[in-house]
């Protein structure tokens, strides 16, 4: 590019300068509003991952999830923190009130998190992610196993209505 054409362009840009700035300003306004909106709406809560085949029930509560031990009850198995722990058929047929493999898995997680302040939620809280068709008898066994392991706060994950 020669100097003269550059100069020419510049002067042309300066002529059109007013309208171009105006357009940019309105675009920027939109962006700023968008950024603010997204910043405000950004939830600080922890995102719960639910498997596709687990359909959560709907509820009107608005408490956000917190850091906790995640227990997923699906049709085939019980998963704790993503690790398969015990088969569902075994839990259903068990006559015991407490399910030993669940209890042991939770105890292990609790021991792991014992001296880590960043994982304090893993010592006291449990979130149960269960399909809407799960029977209470099964839930009761899982809840009892958690309570026996010393977890005082139990919550159920639900879809916000």
């Amino acid at each position, binding site marked *: 590019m020669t100097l003269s054409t550059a100069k020419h362009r510049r002067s042309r*840009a300066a002529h059109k*300068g007013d309208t171009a700035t105006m357009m940019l300003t309105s675009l920027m306004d939109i*962006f700023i509003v968008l*950024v603010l909106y997204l910043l405000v709406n950004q939830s600080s809560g922890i995102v719960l991952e639910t498997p596709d085949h687990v359909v959560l*029930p709907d509820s009107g509560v608005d408490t956000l999830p*917190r850091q906790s031990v995640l227990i997923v009850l699906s049709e085939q198995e019980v998963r704790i923190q993503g690790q398969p722990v015990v088969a569902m058929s075994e839990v259903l047929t068990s006559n015991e009130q407490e399910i030993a493999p669940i209890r042991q898995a939770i105890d292990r997680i609790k021991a792991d998190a014992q001296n880590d302040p960043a994982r304090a939620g893993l010592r006291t809280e449990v979130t149960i992610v269960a399909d809407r068709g799960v029977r*209470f008898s099964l839930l009761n066994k899982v809840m009892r196993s958690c309570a026996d392991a010393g977890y005082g706060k139990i919550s159920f994950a639900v879809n916000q209505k």
Partner: protein
Amino acid sequence: MFKRMRQESEELELTTLLNVLVVLVSFLLLSAVFSSITIQELNMPQHADRTAGINNASPPVVIEVMLRHDALEIGNGKDITDRLPKAGDRYDTATLSRKLKLLKDRNPGNRDVILLVEADVDYANMIGVMDALKFVEVPGPQEGSKMLRITLFPHVTVGEAP
């Protein structure tokens, strides 16, 4: 000429700001969570070795709601005061909320309720009834205004029905 140059440099500054904003917007859009999952909190029944202390400190008014496979029952710890049969496939949670609202008006300081569930009730129904125990939605004072949410008994203890 000098004035023109200054105008041009202003434009350039805007562009960099715009770039930053575009990056910010795309980042925030990507990290935004649209389907939100919330949690339904429970009050745990205490261990057997601590029940002695609990009995002394327990509030005089006990509200129990029994969730049976065919009906909802409201009790006061000794006997059952109301029985709401299941209508078709659904539990009558609206009437339950209304009855509990009356109880709440009588004992405004009470925040605890005991929910006793039968073994073969499914989870979705249990959550629905827990919602009805925690709050009730009433129409606002003006026509067409938003539903007002009144908190009933947010501390729900879940146990097995006898």
